[in-house]
């Protein structure tokens, strides 16, 4: 109905956007802003800057939503290749902050690992789209190599959390491509066996400590367990209906660390209670399902695999963050997607949603031309 009122180019852009998904994202961003305003002690400054992040991210989302699967495919190898080069450069000439070397200075600080969050699933999806599915065993091995190269480079920084998340994004592609259930079962069994070995030999002391914190109840709450301890208090004290917006004592009295970033979910839980939590989780569930739905309507295999894996990656961020904040997963620096304060994560996620929407099968507007 807008078609007749709006210029054709706008109509074309709008048609390629998924308005249902955008509405849900808008709602989530609004909730995030409201929570951030409270978490930052009513600082409109911080909310304003977060708004800028969304503006940049939103613009990129709209642009990328216009990019068709066949166009994107042409960029994949370049993007992936550039990412690998940058990751290598990080290890050679990167900037070190707080004991980790994750940044490259190119006028501004960039984090090449962030590129890989999209480039890895894209590369794997591209690889499988060239093959017939379900994938053969050898294809899976090659896909895993494509995943492990950047993963190992990121692990070297060290940034275990990001490297695992990137690996998971790639593995989702393998899963969606149709890796046989037998193999999946076998791999899960192998992981279960390898995990304790990994814990003892493959982890840094601080990482082991974080895992232990989770398992053990009698950790020193003022040291290792402080984040989780305070976060659980905030959530638990929120109760069913919450303490009300702006009334969370835990966050406003500074007990809750990193309350605008990784632990913002605890602020939300304290102020809006279980009712708010269920609503928020439902909203997230809807967004993830909508992403999967769009993926299933994908233009081609590449589009489906990429959109599907990006949607599931979004889910993993959500799961890891909420699991961490509520004390069931170890502390990994993962923000609550689209709610936590921070430009990098928001821009990456918005780009991902742009890509997801872009993968949708185009309506045959120019049918007559064919």
């Amino acid at each position, binding site marked *: 109905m807008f078609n007749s009122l709006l210029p054709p180019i706008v109509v074309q852009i709008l048609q390629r956007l998924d308005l249902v998904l955008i509405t849900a994202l808008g709602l989530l961003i609004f909730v995030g802003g409201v929570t951030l305003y409270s978490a930052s002690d009513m600082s409109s400054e911080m909310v304003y800057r977060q708004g800028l992040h969304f503006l940049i991210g939103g613009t990129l989302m709209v642009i990328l939503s216009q990019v068709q699967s066949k166009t994107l495919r042409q960029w994949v190898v370049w993007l992936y290749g550039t990412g690998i080069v940058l990751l290598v450069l990080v290890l050679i000439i990167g900037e070190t902050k707080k004991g980790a070397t994750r940044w490259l200075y190119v006028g501004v600080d960039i984090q090449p690992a962030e590129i890989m969050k999209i480039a890895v699933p894209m590369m794997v999806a591209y690889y499988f789209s060239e093959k*017939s*599915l*379900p994938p053969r065993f050898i294809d899976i091995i090659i896909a895993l190599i494509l995943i492990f190269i950047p993963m190992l480079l990121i692990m070297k920084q060290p940034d275990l959390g990001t490297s695992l998340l990137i690996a998971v994004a790639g593995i*989702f592609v393998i*899963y*969606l*491509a*149709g890796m046989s259930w037998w193999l999946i079962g076998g791999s899960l069994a192998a992981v279960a066996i390898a995990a304790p070995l990994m814990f003892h030999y493959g982890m840094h002391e601080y990482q082991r400590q974080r895992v232990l914190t989770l398992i053990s109840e009698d950790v020193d709450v003022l040291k290792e367990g402080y984040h989780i301890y*305070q976060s*659980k*208090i*905030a*959530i*638990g*004290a*929120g*109760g*069913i209906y919450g303490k009300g917006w702006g009334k969370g*004592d*835990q966050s*406003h*009295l*500074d*007990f809750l660390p990193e309350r605008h970033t990784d632990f913002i979910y605890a602020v939300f*839980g304290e102020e809006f*209670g*279980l009712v708010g*939590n*269920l609503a928020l*989780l439902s909203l*997230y*569930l809807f967004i*993830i*399902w909508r992403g*999967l*739905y769009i*993926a*299933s309507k*994908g233009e*081609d*295999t590449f589009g*489906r*695999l990429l959109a*599907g894996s990006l949607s*599931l990656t979004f*889910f993993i961020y*959500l*799961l890891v963050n*909420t*699991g961490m904040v*509520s*004390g*069931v997963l170890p502390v990994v620096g993962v923000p609550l997607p689209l709610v936590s304060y921070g430009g990098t994560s928001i821009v990456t996620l918005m780009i991902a949603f742009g890509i997801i929407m872009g993968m949708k099968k185009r309506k045959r507007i120019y049918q007559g031309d064919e």
Partner: protein
Amino acid sequence: MGERLSIKTERDEQQLFNSRAIVAALIVLLALTGIAARMYFLQVKQHDHYTELSLQNYQRRIPKAPTRGQIYDRNGVLLADSKTKYVLQIIRDGVPDLNGDNLRRYDDIEVLLGQLNNIVTITDKEQRLFMQQLRKKSRYQPTVLKENLTDVEVAKFAVNKPRFPGVDIEVRMERNYPYGAVASHVIGYVGRIDERDMKNLNRDEYAASTHIGKTGVEASHEDRLHGQTGYLEVEVDAHGQHKGVIKEIPPVGGQDLFLSIDINLQLKAEELLKDERGAIIAIDPSSGEVLAMASVPTFDPNLFVNGISHKDYIDLRDNPDRPLYNRALQSAYPPGSTIKPMVALGGLQEGVIWPSKTTYDPGFFQIPGNKHRYRCWKKSGHGAVGIDRAIAQSCDTFFYDMAYRMGVEKYSAFMRSYGFGQLTGIDLPSESAGLMPTPEWKQKRYKQVWYPGDTVNIGIGQGYWLATPLQLAHAVSTTAMRGVRIKPRLLHAVRRVKNEPPEMIPPDYLPKITLKNSRYWDLAINGMINVVNSSYGTAKKVSEDISYTMAGKTGTAQVFGIAQNAKYDAKRLAKRLHDHALFVGFAPANNPKIAMSVIVENGGGGSSVAAPLARAIMDEYLVPKPKVDPNAPTDANVTPTQTGTTPTDPLVNNKKVSATPTGH
């Protein structure tokens, strides 16, 4: 063909993807349900637990110490008060940073002190001490710059306070005893709460208190004096910064106590005992209220309030005169002859003697079939004596005989009914129960049987019998009241709310002593009147120019055992081995207003040394003071300068020939 295959593959791949996506969607649902369940667990199941933790996080209770109750004498004279003290202190971290290096260097502080000096005078010594302390403390801890600010200085600083961030005035309460060493055993003192105190007290109630009663009334009435701790509930952030007050419950000050002590009488009693060791206790027989309780030497309780110096404490502790000891109720002495009126009452009650009974005193008593002679203090003997003369002249033989025939069981039981061998229950700590011996006690203590001679000895208040001066005063008060026993006490009245009239504390009656015939009381009391007032009484000298009827009984308690037939020679014995001088009495005899006991350790004879002190106290209490007239004759009252042994007194010399435990 290739085209068709591609379409088929496309369709298969679409289907494959769809099935995988659906499984993934279900896994997502499952996982988020798991998170929701976790939230339910935290926010519903464990909500109370986390609410509690949250409150612990941000609520801090700042306890506020109550003001300790004041202590007054019965007439409202202040004996102990809580003085407010203003202390100027500085927290280094709060001081303005002149260098901008965030360090608050010591020269920053010196600049500040220079500015402060214009408002509050700071001596060089104070400044030096302060700088020393400052270097030892953390930058967040307050350091005292000046103690005892005057009201003017406090006011001047208050006006200028905004100019001095980091500088603060702290209000401290301090206990002060304006009379110093007077009545220090009764009042006691407060001291800093130590670990031993911590074990017994309610930590919440004492959360803000620094001091607690350690001895005397300060300790025994701690509950009344302390008051209720108030608190300020404040909200703090994670850095401990106060964000606001949630709730304030002000402290409730302790009760003011009005002691039964009359401070003038107390002063008199302590003055009378000056340079001696001893105790004087005066009780109002009708109420049990202690009018004076002197234990000399005394000590200055002010020394203890903020921690006594090691030297001062050693001086007090190692002083052979034991000034910290409350002789009135912590020391037990052989009561000597002071108990003879009560022995007579016991004998009458048990039918061992009767009003007309006389005993012949040849100067000694012998247990039938035994050669040992229990000597009377009067070597030549009193001849035939009845109850009246036996008491008035303190005839030992009469009571030897009576006690022997009464037997230890009945004798002890009767004295127990008087309160001997038991705590009087006075409201002071550390009371001694004394000792009222029985055969069972001796068996247990010495693994020996009770000999009839033991009974003979306790018949004149010697042997194993030990009584505190307070027990003696209480006993004579009971006699004065003809058997009505009232628990002695120091608490006269309490005032719960400032500016309201005090509430009187009613007497606490103990089981009465009822005799077969109430005339027996007259016999004993008449004997006591004759001790003082008759021509033959042992203390007749104290009744000179007396304006009321005084009843009393002298006593001498032997410290040093002298062999049979040996002589007691005061000159040859060290002062510490001299006899204790004792006197008990009450007045007016027909309407008792004051009952008392006096003991002068190693003072010598009860009649010459102790009795005049009792007279002086009674005069002070009973005789209305004449208008001060510088020309008036000053010999109207017995002066306390007669203390010490008076070798010219024939009675004292007579007594000294006695070789057995004796008294008069």
